[in-house]
């Protein structure tokens, strides 16, 4: 065992700075992902073939290409095409796009799980399709998909670790830096793992609360 308490303590400030970066990236990408996911989910079942197939292509690409490849492509690949993006911009685009793709599929399934009688009733009252979708279908669907979306957010928090490959000093990279600097691997990594765990625990808890609450109907 190579655990040294003093190195562990000395690493904490640096790790916390990294944790703030990780949490910030995750939070922003979860929010963008939710917006993309709701729009994408509605597009996936649209009668307009451009929207429907556009959303399908998007989802297929984002789910099929490894996040690490997307990150590297945007950061190392695009400059050769003359497009230079900041590491943070790349990270947020990639994380939001991947998260948005998964949320799109969750929202689509959520909408499709709503009894078609709801749409029929709303339309029969004279509502337009988009009115019925916004006011009747989505509010019910979103309640139902909150648990899987929390679950997806948890995955996203962990996936943010990949941004350390594009020079961002997130939690993982901060740990790696301490490791090099202190010539000790075990202690900083114990700290890194612990902090990831502490960040995901609230989501685990939220997920189980939401599942209990929305299981009723």
């Amino acid at each position, binding site marked *: 065992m190579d655990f040294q308490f003093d190195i562990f303590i000395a690493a904490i400030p640096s790790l916390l700075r990294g944790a703030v970066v990780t949490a910030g990236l995750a939070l922003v990408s979860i929010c963008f992902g939710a917006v993309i996911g709701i729009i994408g989910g509605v597009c996936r079942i649209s009668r307009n073939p451009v929207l429907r197939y556009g959303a399908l292509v998007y989802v297929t690409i984002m789910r099929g290409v490894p996040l690490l490849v997307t990150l590297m492509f945007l950061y190392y690949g695009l400059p050769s095409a003359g497009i230079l993006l900041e590491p943070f911009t790349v990270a947020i685009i990639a994380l939001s796009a991947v998260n948005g793709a998964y949320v799109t599929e969750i929202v689509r399934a959520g909408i499709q799980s709503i009894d078609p009688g*709801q749409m*029929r009733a709303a*339309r029969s*009252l004279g509502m337009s399709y988009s009115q019925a979708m916004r006011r009747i279908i989505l509010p*019910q669907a979103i309640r139902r998909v909150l648990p899987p979306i929390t679950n997806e957010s948890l995955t996203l928090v962990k996936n943010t670790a990949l941004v350390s490959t594009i020079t961002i000093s997130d939690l993982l990279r901060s740990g790696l830096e301490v490791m090099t600097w202190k010539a000790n691997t075990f202690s900083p990594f114990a700290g890194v793992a612990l902090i990831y765990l502490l960040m995901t625990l609230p989501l685990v808890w939220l997920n189980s609360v939401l599942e209990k609450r929305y299981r009723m109907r």
Partner: protein
Amino acid sequence: MTETTTAADRPVVIRRLWKSYGSNEVLKGISLSVERGEVVAIIGPSGSGKSTLLQCINFMEPFDDGEVLIDGRPIGLIQTSGGTRTRMPEKDLNTLRREIGIVFQQYNLFPHLTVLANIIEAPVHVLGLPRAEAIERARFQLKKVGLHGKEDAYPGELSGGQQQRVAIARALAMQPKVMLFDEVTSALDPELVGEVLATMRTLAEEGMTMIVVTHEMAFARDVADRVIFMDGGMIVEAGDPKEFFSNPQHERSKAFLKRLLSNGEDTKDAA
């Protein structure tokens, strides 16, 4: 039915309506005119096209041929300059649908909204009524269906019979020209059927134009002005309810009524 009044005087006129799902012909040239204040009961075996007919009246199911007039105005298909017919703009369709109330077997209340919010939803967001006025309207309708005081309940907290009466109030709050009922008591526990039928009977007595698809033969006989017997996508027999039930003319009507009677007494004690 003699053609002494024009189509514009009638809330609903259906002419030679054809509809198929793929190769399955579900409606085969249905024609039916409903007078203002008339209650028409539609009966017939399962799969005969009764629900499809109701869904075609508000064009929730597009029909293939024929026409439906609501207060003299065609719904669903319009003539193009080229002489063919095409689906009318959604906006016009939505406007026409306001005139047609429909109540479903499965209630289809919005579970995330309170009773009051269910009822004012369309008056506020479709008709553009001020909220206060919509609430007043909703309370009036709730009282009428006997659910005064249930404004803040959620649909899930109500019995089936209460939910169905909220659904009726929700449709009425749009002040439609005609109300369509699709087997609205079929999903209810037997002891809750009466309260819903009583509400419908009151509505009929107040002069609402109604097309009622039902298995409640007592209701059809006592409340309806006319009974339509459908089978295989066609109107087989139509006439005065008393006459129809005591002396059906067509072989298929006779067979249908006979089968109902042998299926037990459950239709005799309604409302």
